[in-house]
């Protein structure tokens, strides 16, 4: 360390930002602390999926400060509270600095050669003895695209198993399923640019203020400048997002499908439907067959406001009011996140929100879109686009299509027969297979499943019994406890790479400093592991991040997510590009399926005739309005477990605290977990604020402090899930959506008593 601690604290305390840009701000203030030697480097925030541009301040070989990137169109220089302290995480005491091998139950420092040699030998033995499907990879929506790309190639293309998953299965898979079934292609049609053009925001299952603060800030600014802008919330819980709400429908957790159908019924009945758009752009379906528009209307007849009110607990008048707000708004943008996705009917819930846009024509025009908010910084870029799930291949391809396997195998330099046509095991099935011993070796990268899986304690058995490799920047975590080998991974700012955020924007991140200790870039750890496993020809060619990215974007050429116009050389100069971006002189695409989308523009005139949108993922270019049943949660409340438990985030923390838990200010803001309980329920049960209580589900019990507060409705409770010490996921249910395989973290039945 070339900087003294005091100097570092002083800099990181905030002064560096203005000082270093060399402006004299005010007389008497700290002046140009590092102006002479500090440099700023373009990057992207490491936390959620919003994709905020961030500048990293460097002095010597040390990250000393961060500030929002004024040139970035997403955040315009603003950062949320987590991001503000991100530079401190780089130097956390919990950084993993050396490879370690567990010997006799204790981790012992090892050389890279020894650690990777052991992993390669063990993986090869298991592969030889039990076949390729005895191995698995579990990655992350926080890994860079280049990192996931290398894992995908090693496992699917070389080892020969599709047991490749990532934690976006736990947060985004239902949104993928929703977009694919409604539009035929994954990811939103619009971008953040729609926000300032929209008249109404429908926030469903999204605590935007805490989970996506910079999006919330844009909503606040837009609404404060345009008081007629309406915010409509459908969510079981009152949150800080309610500060800007015009109407909030407090649905019972998991029972909102009927409400959205009821809104659709009102929209059509009261003349808010865009009949011309429907005629030209929309097909109707139920789970078994195509429907006519009339049959869809007939289906909706069940969903009177009164019926939906009975199912959901919301008043009929409020449902009518909500529908009219949506219908009367000239433009509307819906946003959702885990409250819709983490459900056993997450795909259906996604479909129904998109239905509202399709029947009113509020799609494909500025200010209107059905816009899924992403939870992790590269869930879209690395995993959805990069093909880091068990059924996918890079470039929105799927393993089941021979042409897709051949195209990818050719670029990877492997026989197409190496890639299996059958999808591998999805996340919950993968950890179940570890429990059963069907998977005997797993490589876990940049994620903490021992804490983040639903019904987590059920899956500790497999982690304990099988050969587990964890590549991580931090140690210990709940997962490293079960590791046989831990590999120190370079952290944000210590590596080059690309993140692709919620709005289809891919952004380049510079390597600013050398990694701490002996940490290495995950992409090169995987490359070197591949070489040690015997795939020298396949991996030795990758010398730089650019080598990997260039190969990857070549695979996207001609696809709906064409990034071939976004090489490193261009991405270094701009604040990201929104695909499709098919050539280096293409500016990127604001709206898909319509004018300006290169795929739409290239369509033959007869296909576009009389239509303003063409959903080219569907055979006839028409999107689908779905008549889905209004099924409730997998585990509804009952006499034994009368409360609906939901989990979620707080503003100041992120996921399993490996990062935010190292920042004193963020720990001070929210030092511990708690269970929120409505005052009416608390009174009935004799529970006072700050009492220790036991929350119990059919899977486990947790002793925790009660917070008696009017945020949850009576009959529901809420626990922020970040802490290992108060691990909410020992309570959650591991039932999954049959389509997306995403678990139902957001709803299960619970009971509570004083400890």
């Amino acid at each position, binding site marked *: 360390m070339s900087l003294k601690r005091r100097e570092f604290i002083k800099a990181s*305390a905030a002064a560096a930002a*203005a000082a270093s840009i060399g402006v*004299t*701000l*005010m007389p008497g203030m700290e002046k140009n602390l590092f102006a002479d030697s500090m440099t700023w480097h373009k990057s992207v925030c490491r936390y959620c999926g919003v994709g905020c541009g961030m500048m990293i301040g460097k002095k010597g070989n040390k990250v000393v400060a961060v500030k929002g990137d004024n040139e970035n169109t997403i955040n315009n*220089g603003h*950062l949320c509270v987590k991001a503000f302290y991100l530079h401190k995480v780089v130097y956390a005491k919990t950084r993993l600095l050396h490879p370690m091998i567990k010997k006799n139950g204790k981790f012992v420092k090892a050389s890279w050669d020894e650690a990777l040699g052991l992993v390669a030998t063990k993986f090869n033995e298991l592969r030889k003895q039990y076949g390729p499907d005895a191995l698995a990879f579990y990655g992350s929506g926080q890994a860079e695209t280049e990192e996931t790309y290398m894992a995908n190639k090693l496992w699917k293309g070389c080892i020969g198993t599709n047991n490749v998953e990532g934690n976006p299965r736990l947060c985004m898979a239902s949104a993928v399923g929703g977009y694919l079934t409604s539009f035929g292609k994954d990811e939103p049609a619009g971008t953040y640019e729609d926000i300032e053009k929209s008249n109404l925001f429908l926030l469903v299952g999204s605590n935007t203020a805490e989970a996506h603060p910079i999006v919330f800030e844009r909503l606040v600014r837009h609404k404060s400048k345009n008081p007629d802008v309406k915010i409509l919330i459908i969510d079981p819980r009152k949150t800080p997002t309610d500060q800007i709400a015009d109407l909030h429908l407090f649905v019972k957790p998991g029972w909102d499908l009927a409400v959205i159908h009821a809104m659709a019924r009102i929209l059509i009945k009261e003349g808010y439907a865009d009949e011309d758009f429907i005629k030209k752009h929309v097909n109707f379906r139920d789970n078994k067959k195509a429907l006519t528009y009339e049959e869809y209307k007939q289906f909706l007849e069940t969903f009177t406001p009164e019926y939906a009110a009975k199912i959901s607990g919301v008043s009929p008048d409020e449902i009518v009011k909500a529908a009219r707000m949506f219908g009367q708004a000239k433009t509307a943008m819906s946003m959702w996140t885990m409250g819709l996705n983490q459900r056993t009917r997450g795909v259906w819930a996604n479909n129904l929100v998109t239905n509202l846009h399709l029947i009113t024509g509020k799609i494909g025009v500025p200010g209107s879109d059905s816009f899924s908010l992403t939870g992790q910084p590269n869930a879209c870029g690395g995993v959805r686009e990069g093909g880091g799930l068990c059924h996918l291949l890079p470039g929105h391809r799927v393993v089941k299509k021979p042409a897709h396997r051949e195209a990818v195998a050719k670029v990877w330099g492997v026989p197409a027969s190496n890639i299996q046509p059958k999808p591998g095991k999805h996340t919950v099935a993968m950890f179940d297979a570890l429990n059963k011993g069907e998977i005997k070796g797993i490589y876990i990268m940049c994620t903490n499943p021992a804490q983040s899986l639903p019904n987590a304690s059920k899956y500790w058995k497999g982690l304990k019994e099988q050969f587990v490799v964890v590549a991580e920047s931090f140690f210990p975590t709940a997962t490293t406890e079960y590791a046989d080998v831990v590999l120190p991974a370079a952290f944000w700012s210590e590596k080059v790479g690309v993140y692709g955020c919620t709005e289809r924007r891919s952004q380049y991140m510079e390597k600013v400093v050398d990694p701490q200790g002996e940490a290495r870039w995950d992409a090169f750890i995987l490359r070197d592991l591949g070489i040690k496993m015997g795939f020298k020809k396949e991996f030795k060619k990758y010398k730089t991040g650019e080598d990997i990215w260039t190969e990857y974007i070549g695979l996207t050429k001609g696809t709906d997510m064409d990034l071939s116009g976004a090489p490193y050389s261009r991405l270094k100069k701009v604040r990201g590009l929104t695909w499709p971006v098919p050539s280096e002189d293409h500016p990127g695409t604001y709206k898909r399926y319509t004018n300006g989308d290169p795929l739409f523009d290239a369509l033959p005139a007869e296909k576009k005739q009389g239509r303003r949108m063409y959903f080219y993922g569907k055979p006839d270019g028409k999107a689908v309005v779905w008549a889905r049943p209004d099924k409730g949660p997998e585990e509804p409340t009952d006499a034994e477990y009368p409360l609906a438990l939901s989990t979620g985030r707080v503003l100041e923390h992120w996921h399993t605290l490996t990062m935010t838990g190292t920042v004193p200010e963020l720990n*001070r803001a929210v030092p511990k977990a708690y269970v929120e309980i409505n005052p009416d329920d608390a009174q009935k049960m004799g529970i006072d604020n700050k009492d220790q209580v036991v929350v119990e589900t059919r899977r486990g019990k947790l002793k925790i402090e009660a917070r008696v507060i009017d945020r949850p409705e009576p009959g529901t409770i809420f626990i922020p899930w970040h802490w290992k010490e108060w691990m909410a996921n020992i309570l959650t249910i591991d039932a999954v959506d049959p389509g997306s395989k995403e678990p139902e973290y957001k709803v299960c039945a619970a009971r509570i008593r004083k400890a």
Partner: protein
Amino acid sequence: MKFKLSIIAGLLLLFIFSLNLMADKQEKPAKHADVDWSVSCMECHQEVTPDAVKEWKSSKHGLMNFGCYMCHGDGQEEFYPQPGTERCIGCHSDYQIEPTQTTVKNCFDCHKGHTLKFHQKKD
């Protein structure tokens, strides 16, 4: 001999102690009262300084949930009971004021209290 060594050791300790005092005098970081650190700033200050919390909640900082720690530090490692301008500019680095045209010395000369509204104007 033992006596001499004791005197030397004693003088050495005194010297180190006095250096320490000098260092303290030079830097003297503010210290937050020792409290139950398992309780968040907000939770405690809602009880002990409710007016300040109420003001903060009505502010843009409150709306965006920029908590106490953003300006005042975490209270343990760093504590700024009266934060200065350098606490503001990490976020507000794009705000530039020409010093020759103003006599103010600090952001808080104009942005008062916990509302931080300009000259306390209503909005």
